């Protein structure tokens, strides 16, 4: 675990009542690096993002950003520090327009440097800028989540199942956008079920199961790892090509 990493997550534990959703998760991430976080339903991927973004306080372990512990840093301050996210179930401000959604985020982050000038345009929602967020499809709302996150100028972006429900061309376009962000120095954790999509972004993946990491390494190696294939319910091999289970 390097000390100059942008993000260090070490031995994080998160319990809900008697249930342990994260059981000693550790990872670290450098500037501009993309980490794929994969695993079956309920394995703890979203919980991991919730702990890093500050929505949940961990019951054990530590999360640090630029070498400083975030344990007592509230969610809004993490956003100001340059950590942002999208939501698996998108959470736009439904009563506001697309542009207003992004303006709210832009209004509070002060002088943070943005990697994209016009987040609404970047995510492909320019034609809907004055439409109410509630009129967007769920896929578009996820893009709005992304635009809103980008308007805060994040250094660390946590992306939770952005690709679900997109068609192959849209998937390609989104992958290109995320790759561009990484090339500009944005570090990303990408939670995704579609392994083909992850494959377009990065070779570095962590596979989770029941709150633990069962594999860390190259996606191509993960597909041949017996523990990984075992958790993907009887599938003898995880198909990297289309990734659909």
């Amino acid at each position, binding site marked *: 675990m390097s000390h100059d990493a942008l993000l260090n997550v070490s031995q994080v534990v998160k319990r809900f009542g008697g249930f342990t959703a994260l059981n000693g998760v550790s990872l670290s991430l450098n500037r501009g690096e993309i980490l794929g976080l994969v695993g079956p339903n309920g394995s703890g991927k979203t919980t991991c993002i919730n702990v890093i973004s*500050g929505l949940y306080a961990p019951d054990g372990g530590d999360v640090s950003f630029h070498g400083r512990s975030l344990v007592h840093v509230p969610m*809004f301050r993490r956003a100001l520090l340059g950590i942002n996210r999208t939501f698996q179930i998108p959470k736009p*401000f439904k009563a506001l327009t697309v542009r207003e959604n992004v303006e709210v985020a832009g209004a*509070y982050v002060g002088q943070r440097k943005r990697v994209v000038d016009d987040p609404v345009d970047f995510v492909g929602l320019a034609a809907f800028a004055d439409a109410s967020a509630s009129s967007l499809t769920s896929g578009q709302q996820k893009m709005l989540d992304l635009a809103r996150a980008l308007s805060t100028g994040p250094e660390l972006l946590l992306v939770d199942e952005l690709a679900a429900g997109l068609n192959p061309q849209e998937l390609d376009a989104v992958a290109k956008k995320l790759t561009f962000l990484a090339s500009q120095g944005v570090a990303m954790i990408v939670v995704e079920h579609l392994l083909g999509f992850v494959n377009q972004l990065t070779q570095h993946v962590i596979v989770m199961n029941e709150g633990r990491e069962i594999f860390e390494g190259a996606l191509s190696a993960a597909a041949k790892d017996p523990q990984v294939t075992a958790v993907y319910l009887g599938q003898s091999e995880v198909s990297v090509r289309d990734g659909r289970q």
Partner: protein
Amino acid sequence: MRKNKLSNAIILVGLAILFILAPLLYPNQSVPFQMMAYMALAQGINLLYGFTGYLPFGYVGFFGSGAYGVSVLVLLLHWSVIPAVIGGGLVAVAVALLLSPLLRLSGAYFSIGSLAASEIVYYIVSNPNMQNITQGPYGVNLAGVYAPNTSYYAMLVILLIFTAVVMYVKNSTFGMSLLAIKEDPVSAAMCGVNVVRNRVVIWLASAFAAGLAGAVYGWYVSVFYPSSVFDLTISIFAIVFTLFGGGGTVLGPIVGTIVLYGLYNTIGVSSPQYFQLIYGLLIVVLVMFLPQGLTSLLKRRGINVP
């Protein structure tokens, strides 16, 4: 933005002219005075409800705190009346600060919690053991500072100030952050909004409006009792006026108060039996057909309501 400034200026000047002329045209000064008091309270509720969705049934607790604040500062501490009025407003702010954990509740739980809290304040103030400070249930007499005309204009100033505060909040990034919190506190936090602090700030501002209105009310009437300044009818009226006109707008609480309080004074006093009926019907019709208030009629036509 410029359009907003113009319409806001018109509203403020219009209110000032209306309430400067009213006592000259209307035989009974206390009617326009009460209307101003309700309008100021409605704007205070508007600050909280219109921008955060919290509906404080116990709002009158701040009004009563302001009235008793001014009486203690004048009678016990011998402050002169204007600083005492401001002090009365600050007493309400202090009460609100103590009650700020209520903001952890949501929806009906918050409304009922605030109602219970105002009842507690009422019982403390009216407790006979408090006679040395508040005169308990026996009421206070501020005859020494009685000044109906000055206090009338003081209420006008408070009304104008809090109408201007609503204008500011409505057009500021602060107001936008409150609307964002109302929509989705988690998303608001990810936008860098300090959710807890901003909620508390608007809660205190709202309490300050009621506290100042209560303080000036106490000064104006000069003789009052706990049961009159902690009367739940005051909360109910102010809430209904706000909702009737439409929360989240500058104009809504003004229009709501003029229409409903006007109606109350024309029919309500002469033939209360019809008044109850008409009032009830109006409110039912509103809830069913115009849940966003009277001003939403204009919004639906695409007219921007200040």
